[in-house]
Protein backbone atom coordinates (compact mmCIF):
# COMPACT_ATOMS: atom_id res chain seq x y z
CA UNK A 1 0.00 0.00 0.00
CA UNK A 2 2.67 2.46 1.05
CA UNK A 3 4.92 1.35 -1.79
CA UNK A 4 2.11 1.80 -4.29
CA UNK A 5 1.42 5.24 -2.88
CA UNK A 6 5.04 6.31 -3.18
CA UNK A 7 5.35 4.95 -6.72
CA UNK A 8 2.13 6.67 -7.73
CA UNK A 9 3.40 9.95 -6.34
CA UNK A 10 6.68 9.46 -8.16
CA UNK A 11 4.92 8.92 -11.49
CA UNK A 12 2.76 11.99 -11.01
CA UNK A 13 5.78 13.97 -9.90
CA UNK A 14 7.73 13.06 -13.01
CA UNK A 15 4.80 14.21 -15.11
CA UNK A 16 4.55 17.59 -13.48
CA UNK A 17 8.32 17.96 -13.42
CA UNK A 18 8.63 17.34 -17.15
CA UNK A 19 6.13 20.10 -17.85
CA UNK A 20 7.93 22.58 -15.63
CA UNK A 21 11.20 21.55 -17.22
CA UNK A 22 9.85 22.11 -20.70
CA UNK A 23 8.49 25.50 -19.71
CA UNK A 24 11.76 26.51 -18.08
CA UNK A 25 13.74 25.61 -21.20
CA UNK A 26 11.91 28.29 -23.14
CA UNK A 27 12.34 30.89 -20.43
CA UNK A 28 16.04 30.22 -19.99
CA UNK A 29 16.78 30.18 -23.72
CA UNK A 30 15.21 33.59 -24.16
CA UNK A 31 17.08 34.85 -21.12
CA UNK A 32 20.38 33.24 -22.03
CA UNK A 33 20.53 34.22 -25.66
CA UNK A 34 18.60 37.46 -25.81
CA UNK A 35 19.18 38.69 -22.26
CA UNK A 36 15.48 39.36 -22.06
CA UNK A 37 13.90 38.17 -18.85
CA UNK A 38 10.43 37.46 -20.10
CA UNK A 39 8.40 37.55 -16.92
CA UNK A 40 5.33 37.28 -19.13
CA UNK A 41 6.41 33.81 -20.27
CA UNK A 42 3.51 32.27 -18.37
CA UNK A 43 1.08 34.73 -19.91
CA UNK A 44 2.06 33.65 -23.40
CA UNK A 45 1.41 30.11 -22.31
CA UNK A 46 -1.96 31.16 -20.97
CA UNK A 47 -2.88 32.65 -24.33
CA UNK A 48 -1.80 29.45 -26.03
CA UNK A 49 -3.97 27.51 -23.64
CA UNK A 50 -6.96 29.64 -24.55
CA UNK A 51 -6.24 29.15 -28.23
CA UNK A 52 -6.27 25.41 -27.67
CA UNK A 53 -9.43 25.65 -25.65
CA UNK A 54 -11.33 27.59 -28.32
CA UNK A 55 -10.08 25.33 -31.08
CA UNK A 56 -11.47 22.40 -29.15
CA UNK A 57 -14.72 24.02 -28.07
CA UNK A 58 -15.65 25.76 -31.31
CA UNK A 59 -14.08 23.52 -33.93
CA UNK A 60 -13.89 20.24 -32.05
CA UNK A 61 -10.17 20.11 -32.73
CA UNK A 62 -8.19 17.59 -30.69
CA UNK A 63 -5.75 19.47 -28.37
CA UNK A 64 -2.75 17.39 -29.40
CA UNK A 65 -3.52 17.60 -33.11
CA UNK A 66 -4.23 21.31 -32.76
CA UNK A 67 -0.70 22.03 -31.51
CA UNK A 68 0.68 23.13 -34.90
CA UNK A 69 -2.21 25.55 -35.44
CA UNK A 70 -1.78 27.10 -32.02
CA UNK A 71 1.92 27.14 -32.74
CA UNK A 72 1.46 29.29 -35.81
CA UNK A 73 -0.89 31.65 -33.97
CA UNK A 74 1.53 32.20 -31.10
CA UNK A 75 4.45 32.45 -33.49
CA UNK A 76 2.71 35.45 -35.02
CA UNK A 77 1.88 36.91 -31.64
CA UNK A 78 5.47 36.45 -30.51
CA UNK A 79 6.78 38.04 -33.68
CA UNK A 80 4.53 41.06 -33.25
CA UNK A 81 5.49 41.47 -29.60
CA UNK A 82 9.18 41.23 -30.42
CA UNK A 83 9.04 43.62 -33.39
CA UNK A 84 6.81 46.19 -31.74
CA UNK A 85 8.07 46.06 -28.16
CA UNK A 86 11.34 44.25 -27.59
CA UNK A 87 13.35 45.03 -30.72
CA UNK A 88 13.74 48.64 -29.59
CA UNK A 89 15.69 47.65 -26.51
CA UNK A 90 17.75 45.01 -28.32
CA UNK A 91 20.41 47.55 -29.32
CA UNK A 92 21.22 48.62 -25.76
CA UNK A 93 24.05 47.20 -23.71
CA UNK A 94 23.22 44.09 -21.77
CA UNK A 95 22.35 45.65 -18.43
CA UNK A 96 20.13 48.36 -19.86
CA UNK A 97 18.51 45.84 -22.16
CA UNK A 98 17.74 43.53 -19.28
CA UNK A 99 16.15 46.26 -17.18
CA UNK A 100 14.07 47.66 -20.00
CA UNK A 101 12.92 44.32 -21.29
CA UNK A 102 11.90 43.50 -17.73
CA UNK A 103 9.71 46.61 -17.67
CA UNK A 104 8.08 45.68 -20.97
CA UNK A 105 7.53 42.10 -19.93
CA UNK A 106 5.99 43.21 -16.63
CA UNK A 107 3.64 45.36 -18.68
CA UNK A 108 2.58 42.36 -20.73
CA UNK A 109 2.27 40.37 -17.55
CA UNK A 110 -0.26 42.88 -16.23
CA UNK A 111 -2.10 43.45 -19.49
CA UNK A 112 -2.55 39.94 -20.87
CA UNK A 113 -4.54 38.48 -17.94
CA UNK A 114 -6.79 41.54 -17.94
CA UNK A 115 -7.48 41.18 -21.63
CA UNK A 116 -8.14 37.49 -21.16
CA UNK A 117 -10.49 38.16 -18.28
CA UNK A 118 -12.38 40.81 -20.19
CA UNK A 119 -12.71 38.69 -23.30
CA UNK A 120 -13.24 35.29 -21.81
CA UNK A 121 -14.26 35.94 -18.16
CA UNK A 122 -12.44 34.49 -15.18
CA UNK A 123 -14.27 31.19 -15.34
CA UNK A 124 -12.44 27.95 -15.11
CA UNK A 125 -12.12 26.27 -18.47
CA UNK A 126 -11.08 22.78 -19.37
CA UNK A 127 -10.26 21.00 -22.57
CA UNK A 128 -12.03 17.72 -22.17
CA UNK A 129 -11.69 15.31 -25.05
CA UNK A 130 -13.08 11.81 -24.52
CA UNK A 131 -9.78 10.49 -23.21
CA UNK A 132 -9.21 13.19 -20.62
CA UNK A 133 -9.31 11.85 -17.11
CA UNK A 134 -8.91 8.31 -18.40
CA UNK A 135 -6.01 6.20 -17.32
CA UNK A 136 -4.59 2.72 -17.51
CA UNK A 137 -2.94 0.60 -14.88
CA UNK A 138 0.61 -0.71 -14.90
CA UNK A 139 1.38 -2.94 -11.95
CA UNK A 140 -1.30 -1.20 -9.96
CA UNK A 141 -0.02 2.30 -10.78
CA UNK A 142 -2.50 4.49 -12.61
CA UNK A 143 -1.12 6.39 -15.55
CA UNK A 144 -3.31 9.00 -17.23
CA UNK A 145 -3.36 9.20 -21.03
CA UNK A 146 -3.10 12.95 -21.11
CA UNK A 147 -0.23 13.23 -18.63
CA UNK A 148 1.58 10.45 -20.46
CA UNK A 149 1.07 12.20 -23.80
CA UNK A 150 2.31 15.43 -22.24
CA UNK A 151 5.35 13.68 -20.83
CA UNK A 152 6.20 12.17 -24.21
CA UNK A 153 5.84 15.50 -25.99
CA UNK A 154 8.01 17.15 -23.34
CA UNK A 155 10.72 14.53 -23.72
CA UNK A 156 10.67 14.72 -27.52
CA UNK A 157 10.81 18.51 -27.55
CA UNK A 158 13.62 18.75 -25.02
CA UNK A 159 15.65 16.09 -26.83
CA UNK A 160 15.00 17.79 -30.14
CA UNK A 161 16.13 21.09 -28.73
CA UNK A 162 19.22 19.47 -27.27
CA UNK A 163 20.13 18.07 -30.68
CA UNK A 164 19.45 21.39 -32.37
CA UNK A 165 21.70 23.27 -29.95
CA UNK A 166 24.53 20.76 -29.99
CA UNK A 167 24.59 19.35 -33.50
CA UNK A 168 23.66 22.14 -35.88
CA UNK A 169 25.59 25.21 -36.90
CA UNK A 170 22.59 27.33 -36.09
CA UNK A 171 22.28 25.82 -32.62
CA UNK A 172 25.94 26.41 -31.94
CA UNK A 173 25.56 30.01 -33.02
CA UNK A 174 22.70 30.33 -30.53
CA UNK A 175 24.90 28.95 -27.75
CA UNK A 176 27.83 31.15 -28.75
CA UNK A 177 25.59 34.20 -28.69
CA UNK A 178 24.43 33.30 -25.22
CA UNK A 179 28.01 32.75 -23.99
CA UNK A 180 29.61 35.83 -25.45
CA UNK A 181 27.46 38.18 -27.42
CA UNK A 182 30.29 40.43 -28.59
CA UNK A 183 32.56 37.61 -29.65
CA UNK A 184 29.68 35.98 -31.52
CA UNK A 185 29.40 39.13 -33.61
CA UNK A 186 33.10 38.88 -34.40
CA UNK A 187 32.52 35.35 -35.70
CA UNK A 188 30.28 36.79 -38.37
CA UNK A 189 27.10 35.70 -36.60
CA UNK A 190 24.19 38.03 -37.11
CA UNK A 191 23.41 38.30 -33.42
CA UNK A 192 20.28 40.35 -33.93
CA UNK A 193 18.80 37.77 -36.25
CA UNK A 194 19.83 34.85 -34.09
CA UNK A 195 18.06 36.50 -31.17
CA UNK A 196 15.04 37.11 -33.28
CA UNK A 197 14.78 33.62 -34.66
CA UNK A 198 15.46 32.20 -31.28
CA UNK A 199 12.61 34.22 -29.82
CA UNK A 200 10.40 32.92 -32.56
CA UNK A 201 11.36 29.38 -31.82
CA UNK A 202 10.48 29.94 -28.20
CA UNK A 203 7.22 31.68 -28.80
CA UNK A 204 6.36 28.95 -31.17
CA UNK A 205 7.00 26.35 -28.59
CA UNK A 206 4.91 28.16 -26.04
CA UNK A 207 1.58 26.80 -27.22
CA UNK A 208 2.95 23.34 -26.75
CA UNK A 209 3.45 24.04 -23.11
CA UNK A 210 0.11 25.71 -22.95
CA UNK A 211 -1.87 22.81 -24.18
CA UNK A 212 0.00 20.39 -22.06
CA UNK A 213 -0.50 22.57 -19.07
CA UNK A 214 -4.06 23.00 -19.91
CA UNK A 215 -4.91 19.40 -20.22
CA UNK A 216 -2.93 18.75 -17.11
CA UNK A 217 -4.21 21.36 -14.77
CA UNK A 218 -7.67 22.10 -16.10
CA UNK A 219 -7.00 25.46 -14.72
CA UNK A 220 -9.02 28.60 -14.60
CA UNK A 221 -7.80 30.45 -17.65
CA UNK A 222 -6.55 33.87 -16.82
CA UNK A 223 -4.64 33.02 -13.68
CA UNK A 224 -2.70 30.22 -15.34
CA UNK A 225 0.18 32.53 -16.18
CA UNK A 226 1.29 33.35 -12.64
CA UNK A 227 0.96 29.78 -11.52
CA UNK A 228 3.12 28.45 -14.32
CA UNK A 229 5.62 31.23 -13.90
CA UNK A 230 6.20 30.76 -10.21
CA UNK A 231 6.91 27.11 -10.75
CA UNK A 232 9.20 27.78 -13.67
CA UNK A 233 11.37 30.27 -11.82
CA UNK A 234 11.77 27.85 -9.00
Amino acid at each position, binding site marked *: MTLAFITQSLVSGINVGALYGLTAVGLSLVFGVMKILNVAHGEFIMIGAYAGFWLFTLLDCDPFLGLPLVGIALFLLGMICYKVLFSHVAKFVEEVKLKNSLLIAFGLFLIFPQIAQTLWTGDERAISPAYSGESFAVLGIRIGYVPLGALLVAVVVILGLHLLLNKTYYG*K*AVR*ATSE*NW*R*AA*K*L*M*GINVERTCYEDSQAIFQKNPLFSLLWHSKLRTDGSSLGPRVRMGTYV
Partner: protein
Amino acid sequence: MLEVQNIDVFYGDIQALWDVSLRVSEGEMVALIGANGAGKTTMVETISGLLRSKAGAITFNNIRIDKKESHKIVQMGISLVPEEKGIFPGMSVLENLELGAFPAESRKHKDESYQSVYGLFSVLESRLQQSAGTLSGGERTMLAIGRALMARPKLLVLDEPSLGLAPLVVKNIFKVIQEIQDSNVSTLLVEQNVRAALRIAARAYIVENGRIADHGKAEKFLHDEKVIEAYLGAA
Protein backbone atom coordinates in the same frame (compact mmCIF):
# COMPACT_ATOMS: atom_id res chain seq x y z
CA MET B 1 43.50 47.54 -48.66
CA LEU B 2 42.27 49.04 -45.39
CA GLU B 3 41.97 52.78 -45.40
CA VAL B 4 40.91 54.71 -42.30
CA GLN B 5 40.34 58.37 -43.05
CA ASN B 6 40.02 61.07 -40.42
CA ILE B 7 37.70 59.28 -38.01
CA ASP B 8 36.38 60.73 -34.75
CA VAL B 9 34.98 58.30 -32.21
CA PHE B 10 33.03 59.06 -29.05
CA TYR B 11 31.99 57.11 -25.97
CA GLY B 12 28.75 58.93 -25.24
CA ASP B 13 29.82 62.58 -25.06
CA ILE B 14 33.46 61.83 -24.47
CA GLN B 15 35.66 61.92 -27.51
CA ALA B 16 38.15 59.08 -27.65
CA LEU B 17 39.67 59.45 -31.12
CA TRP B 18 40.52 62.62 -33.01
CA ASP B 19 41.04 62.67 -36.74
CA VAL B 20 42.64 59.24 -36.96
CA SER B 21 43.89 58.06 -40.34
CA LEU B 22 45.78 54.89 -41.07
CA ARG B 23 46.33 52.44 -43.85
CA VAL B 24 47.18 48.76 -44.21
CA SER B 25 48.28 47.53 -47.64
CA GLU B 26 47.89 44.09 -49.14
CA GLY B 27 50.09 41.55 -47.34
CA GLU B 28 51.52 44.15 -45.00
CA MET B 29 51.94 44.00 -41.23
CA VAL B 30 51.27 47.26 -39.46
CA ALA B 31 51.75 47.85 -35.73
CA LEU B 32 49.74 50.23 -33.58
CA ILE B 33 51.69 51.18 -30.51
CA GLY B 34 51.04 53.52 -27.66
CA ALA B 35 50.44 53.74 -23.94
CA ASN B 36 47.48 52.28 -22.06
CA GLY B 37 44.33 54.23 -22.77
CA ALA B 38 45.76 55.93 -25.86
CA GLY B 39 42.93 54.63 -28.02
CA LYS B 40 44.41 51.62 -29.81
CA THR B 41 41.59 49.27 -28.86
CA THR B 42 39.03 51.93 -29.76
CA MET B 43 40.58 52.10 -33.22
CA VAL B 44 40.39 48.40 -33.94
CA GLU B 45 36.90 48.08 -32.47
CA THR B 46 35.75 50.87 -34.76
CA ILE B 47 37.30 49.10 -37.75
CA SER B 48 35.43 45.93 -36.76
CA GLY B 49 32.14 47.75 -36.43
CA LEU B 50 31.76 47.27 -32.68
CA LEU B 51 31.99 51.04 -32.29
CA ARG B 52 30.77 53.73 -34.66
CA SER B 53 32.72 56.72 -35.88
CA LYS B 54 31.04 60.12 -35.85
CA ALA B 55 33.08 61.53 -38.68
CA GLY B 56 35.43 60.25 -41.36
CA ALA B 57 35.35 57.08 -43.41
CA ILE B 58 36.71 53.55 -43.32
CA THR B 59 37.07 51.63 -46.56
CA PHE B 60 38.15 48.06 -47.17
CA ASN B 61 39.14 47.21 -50.73
CA ASN B 62 37.44 50.45 -51.73
CA ILE B 63 34.10 49.61 -50.11
CA ARG B 64 32.84 51.79 -47.25
CA ILE B 65 32.53 49.68 -44.11
CA ASP B 66 32.08 52.26 -41.36
CA LYS B 67 28.29 51.94 -41.40
CA LYS B 68 28.27 48.16 -41.72
CA GLU B 69 27.39 45.68 -38.99
CA SER B 70 30.22 43.66 -37.40
CA HIS B 71 29.10 40.37 -38.88
CA LYS B 72 29.10 41.88 -42.38
CA ILE B 73 32.62 43.18 -41.86
CA VAL B 74 33.73 39.69 -40.85
CA GLN B 75 32.17 38.30 -44.02
CA MET B 76 34.10 40.85 -46.05
CA GLY B 77 37.36 39.53 -44.64
CA ILE B 78 38.35 41.44 -41.51
CA SER B 79 38.69 39.31 -38.38
CA LEU B 80 39.42 40.81 -34.99
CA VAL B 81 40.96 38.92 -32.11
CA PRO B 82 39.75 41.11 -29.25
CA GLU B 83 41.86 42.01 -26.26
CA GLU B 84 39.79 39.86 -23.91
CA LYS B 85 40.04 37.00 -26.48
CA GLY B 86 36.28 36.34 -26.29
CA ILE B 87 36.42 32.57 -26.46
CA PHE B 88 33.23 30.63 -25.71
CA PRO B 89 34.22 28.98 -22.42
CA GLY B 90 31.35 26.49 -22.20
CA MET B 91 31.93 25.13 -25.68
CA SER B 92 34.64 22.73 -26.79
CA VAL B 93 37.81 23.85 -28.54
CA LEU B 94 36.52 22.25 -31.73
CA GLU B 95 33.19 24.08 -31.50
CA ASN B 96 35.01 27.35 -30.96
CA LEU B 97 37.04 26.78 -34.09
CA GLU B 98 33.97 25.67 -35.99
CA LEU B 99 32.17 28.89 -35.13
CA GLY B 100 35.14 30.81 -36.48
CA ALA B 101 34.16 29.49 -39.89
CA PHE B 102 30.59 30.72 -39.52
CA PRO B 103 30.43 32.94 -42.65
CA ALA B 104 29.09 30.88 -45.57
CA GLU B 105 32.20 31.46 -47.69
CA SER B 106 34.54 30.31 -44.90
CA ARG B 107 32.38 27.30 -44.14
CA LYS B 108 33.12 25.83 -47.55
CA HIS B 109 36.82 25.62 -46.73
CA LYS B 110 36.38 24.50 -43.13
CA ASP B 111 38.38 21.27 -43.38
CA GLU B 112 41.32 22.98 -45.03
CA SER B 113 41.23 25.71 -42.41
CA TYR B 114 41.30 23.21 -39.54
CA GLN B 115 44.48 21.72 -40.95
CA SER B 116 46.23 25.04 -41.31
CA VAL B 117 45.21 26.08 -37.79
CA TYR B 118 46.47 22.77 -36.36
CA GLY B 119 49.67 23.36 -38.30
CA LEU B 120 50.18 26.66 -36.49
CA PHE B 121 48.94 25.55 -33.07
CA SER B 122 49.45 21.82 -32.61
CA VAL B 123 48.40 22.08 -28.96
CA LEU B 124 44.84 22.89 -30.04
CA GLU B 125 44.57 19.69 -32.02
CA SER B 126 45.29 17.65 -28.91
CA ARG B 127 42.57 19.47 -26.94
CA LEU B 128 39.69 19.47 -29.40
CA GLN B 129 37.09 17.95 -27.09
CA GLN B 130 38.17 19.91 -24.01
CA SER B 131 35.94 22.81 -23.06
CA ALA B 132 37.58 26.10 -23.93
CA GLY B 133 37.11 27.47 -20.41
CA THR B 134 39.71 25.00 -19.10
CA LEU B 135 42.50 26.29 -21.35
CA SER B 136 45.44 28.27 -20.02
CA GLY B 137 45.94 31.91 -20.95
CA GLY B 138 48.39 31.10 -23.73
CA GLU B 139 46.15 28.39 -25.14
CA ARG B 140 43.19 30.75 -25.08
CA THR B 141 45.15 33.24 -27.13
CA MET B 142 46.07 30.50 -29.57
CA LEU B 143 42.45 29.42 -29.77
CA ALA B 144 41.28 32.98 -30.35
CA ILE B 145 43.83 33.52 -33.15
CA GLY B 146 43.06 30.10 -34.63
CA ARG B 147 39.36 30.78 -34.50
CA ALA B 148 39.83 34.10 -36.29
CA LEU B 149 41.87 32.33 -38.99
CA MET B 150 39.02 29.83 -39.52
CA ALA B 151 37.15 32.69 -41.18
CA ARG B 152 40.01 32.92 -43.73
CA PRO B 153 40.39 36.67 -43.26
CA LYS B 154 42.17 38.95 -45.70
CA LEU B 155 43.03 41.23 -42.81
CA LEU B 156 43.71 39.88 -39.33
CA VAL B 157 43.45 42.41 -36.51
CA LEU B 158 45.16 41.37 -33.28
CA ASP B 159 44.49 43.38 -30.14
CA GLU B 160 47.28 42.80 -27.63
CA PRO B 161 47.85 39.11 -28.30
CA SER B 162 50.72 38.96 -25.81
CA LEU B 163 48.79 40.49 -22.91
CA GLY B 164 49.34 38.65 -19.64
CA LEU B 165 51.36 35.81 -21.14
CA ALA B 166 54.67 34.34 -20.03
CA PRO B 167 57.70 35.47 -22.09
CA LEU B 168 58.23 32.06 -23.65
CA VAL B 169 54.59 31.87 -24.74
CA VAL B 170 54.80 35.39 -26.13
CA LYS B 171 57.79 34.34 -28.19
CA ASN B 172 55.78 31.46 -29.66
CA ILE B 173 52.78 33.64 -30.40
CA PHE B 174 54.95 36.15 -32.21
CA LYS B 175 56.53 33.37 -34.21
CA VAL B 176 53.07 32.29 -35.35
CA ILE B 177 52.03 35.86 -36.13
CA GLN B 178 55.10 36.05 -38.34
CA GLU B 179 54.08 32.78 -40.07
CA ILE B 180 50.53 34.04 -40.64
CA GLN B 181 51.96 37.18 -42.17
CA ASP B 182 54.18 35.08 -44.43
CA SER B 183 51.08 33.32 -45.74
CA ASN B 184 50.06 36.68 -47.19
CA VAL B 185 47.38 37.68 -44.70
CA SER B 186 47.59 41.38 -43.90
CA THR B 187 47.88 42.07 -40.20
CA LEU B 188 47.09 45.02 -37.99
CA LEU B 189 48.83 44.41 -34.69
CA VAL B 190 48.10 46.30 -31.49
CA GLU B 191 50.88 45.73 -28.99
CA GLN B 192 52.29 46.92 -25.71
CA ASN B 193 55.26 44.73 -26.35
CA VAL B 194 56.67 47.44 -28.54
CA ARG B 195 60.07 46.03 -29.31
CA ALA B 196 58.69 42.69 -30.49
CA ALA B 197 55.98 44.39 -32.52
CA LEU B 198 58.38 46.76 -34.25
CA ARG B 199 60.68 43.88 -35.13
CA ILE B 200 58.06 41.99 -37.13
CA ALA B 201 55.96 44.88 -38.51
CA ALA B 202 56.76 46.73 -41.70
CA ARG B 203 55.26 50.02 -40.60
CA ALA B 204 53.99 51.44 -37.33
CA TYR B 205 51.67 54.12 -36.05
CA ILE B 206 52.29 55.76 -32.71
CA VAL B 207 49.06 56.51 -30.87
CA GLU B 208 48.93 59.24 -28.24
CA ASN B 209 45.81 60.52 -26.48
CA GLY B 210 43.46 59.39 -29.21
CA ARG B 211 45.55 60.81 -32.04
CA ILE B 212 48.10 59.41 -34.42
CA ALA B 213 51.26 61.11 -33.20
CA ASP B 214 53.63 59.67 -35.76
CA HIS B 215 53.91 56.95 -38.35
CA GLY B 216 56.55 55.45 -40.56
CA LYS B 217 58.77 52.44 -41.08
CA ALA B 218 58.87 50.19 -38.01
CA GLU B 219 62.63 50.00 -38.22
CA LYS B 220 62.87 53.75 -37.89
CA PHE B 221 61.04 53.70 -34.53
CA LEU B 222 63.15 50.86 -33.27
CA HIS B 223 66.09 53.25 -33.41
CA ASP B 224 64.15 56.38 -32.49
CA GLU B 225 65.36 57.64 -29.13
CA LYS B 226 62.12 59.40 -28.32
CA VAL B 227 60.01 56.33 -28.95
CA ILE B 228 62.43 54.10 -27.14
CA GLU B 229 62.36 56.39 -24.13
CA ALA B 230 58.56 56.65 -24.11
CA TYR B 231 57.59 53.05 -24.73
CA LEU B 232 60.54 50.83 -24.27
CA GLY B 233 62.02 52.36 -21.14
CA ALA B 234 65.65 53.47 -21.00
CA ALA B 235 67.59 51.15 -23.29
